[in-house]
């Protein structure tokens, strides 16, 4: 008999919306120390950190744009995804009623707000994948609109940027995306990059890679080097927190590769704002834990 996890999903949403993951907060603290004392950049980072603490203490949203809720549900054999979807939807509506989430789902054409963050089958965005074993694991990311708007997809080769179909070309278009974004994606941001795939899977890949921890290392040595290089070169551009100018433009970069057609070479860049809200819930028997 499958348990009703509505309450547990509600806690997952509350945690994601109001409490920044420790790895992200640690990076922001490190960045605040590196900026010029008294600069607008340092002032912005200090305000951000104060805001993070207040949101945690008061259980209020870190950012008023509580974003698109994106769930990845990894479920053991025998679980009903219809029931899981219903429970997630109920939790999202309840989280909205409790002001952990802003009513964010509006009709594409009329702009009418549904008022409870429930829309069509893509809103909230829920992905199901059956896994081996008996543990249910649910990842949630809240992806704000401001940073989503500065995401970009490139089809290589790109002659304007001199970007060919290789890792060097990937570097060039990714730097262009950071430049185009300036501070508009709420810098300092985190880059999720997918190389390959079709246009759709490529964008998904660039979001999924953002579920990695900020301080982990890519298992592919070549991609690990490129992640570090892109973070450093983005910071060299001096765009800084909020685009005020400064040393911290990007907190980290995560890259993944997807099989592609010989004819296509897409590079998708998802820009995640500093309010990098992602949380995981694990259900093992009657034990529920969050990280």
């Amino acid at each position, binding site marked *: 008999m499958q348990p009703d996890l509505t309450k547990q999903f509600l806690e997952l949403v509350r945690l994601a919306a109001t409490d920044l993951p420790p790895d992200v907060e640690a990076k922001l603290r490190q960045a605040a120390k590196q900026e010029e004392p008294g600069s*607008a950049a340092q*002032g*912005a980072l200090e*305000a*951000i950190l*104060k*805001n993070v603490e*207040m*949101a945690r203490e*008061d259980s*209020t*949203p*870190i*950012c*008023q*744009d*509580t974003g698109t809720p994106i769930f990845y549900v990894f479920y053991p054999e025998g679980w009903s995804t219809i029931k899981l979807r219903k429970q997630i939807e109920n939790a999202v509506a309840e989280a909205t009623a409790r*002001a952990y*989430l*802003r*009513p*964010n789902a*509006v009709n594409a054409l009329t*702009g*009418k*707000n549904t*008022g409870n963050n429930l829309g069509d089958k893509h809103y909230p965005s829920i992905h199901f994948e059956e896994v081996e074993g008996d543990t249910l694991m649910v990842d949630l990311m809240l992806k*704000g*609109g*401001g940073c989503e*708007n500065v995401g970009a997809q490139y089809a290589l080769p790109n002659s304007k*940027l*001199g970007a060919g179909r290789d890792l*060097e070309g990937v570097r*060039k278009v990714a*730097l*262009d995306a950071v*430049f185009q974004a*300036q*501070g*508009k994606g*709420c810098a300092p941001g985190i880059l999720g990059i997918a190389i390959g795939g079709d246009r759709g899977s490529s964008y998904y890949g660039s979001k999924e890679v953002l579920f990695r921890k900020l301080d982990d290392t890519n298992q592919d040595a070549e991609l690990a080097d490129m992640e570090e290089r892109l973070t450093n*070169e983005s910071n*060299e*551009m*001096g*765009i*800084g927190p*909020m*685009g*005020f*100018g400064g040393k911290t433009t990007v907190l980290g970069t995560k890259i993944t590769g997807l099989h592609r057609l010989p004819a296509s070479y897409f590079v998708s860049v998802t820009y995640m*704002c*500093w*309010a990098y809200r992602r949380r995981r819930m694990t259900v093992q028997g009657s034990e529920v834990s969050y990280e």
Partner: protein
Amino acid sequence: MKAIDIPISDDIIRSLRVGDPVALSGVMLTGRDAVHKWMIETFIHRTREPQDDDQEIYRAIKPLLDGGIIYHCGPVVSGLETEEYQFVAAGPTTSIREEPYQGDVMAHFNIKGVIGKGGMGPKTLQACQEVPGVYLHAIGGAASLIAKSVQRVLGVYKMDFGVPEAIWVIEVKDFPVVVTMDAHGNSLHQEVTDSSKSILDRLLAVS
């Protein structure tokens, strides 16, 4: 940090320079995409007939915007059922979407300050010189912190636009912002874009 009360005089606006941190106190209005479109179409270009209580709302907001502030913000608000509204989270939204409208809206209502994030373009910078006015950058995402500076919600109009898009009348105390576009034609956003462009060009040239 300069402490400034709303409404704001032209002299104070002209004394502000790009990079100045400012703490604002007084009454301001929120307004974003739907509100700007509604203002332009109904009252400025008049391509749409006023409907329902449009005229009444116009008369109510006009004096509040005269010498005042418009804040690009779609807040999280509690007390929706009891109408005992409270701002829970209220950071800025991206301003550039209002670029086609902002200059005309500033001129029409004599708005002295536009608060948002990400900066705005040449049309708004031009309006900042003419009105005169300034663009004030709030810290994007610092929603709980900013909500704390909102002392009271005095009222709300155009709830039919939805909570994020409605016009919220709020009283703030020491609302923290940075001047990033001033009344003298300076834009920090333009400066940072130009300097980062030259570094990007150098990075694209090496392999």
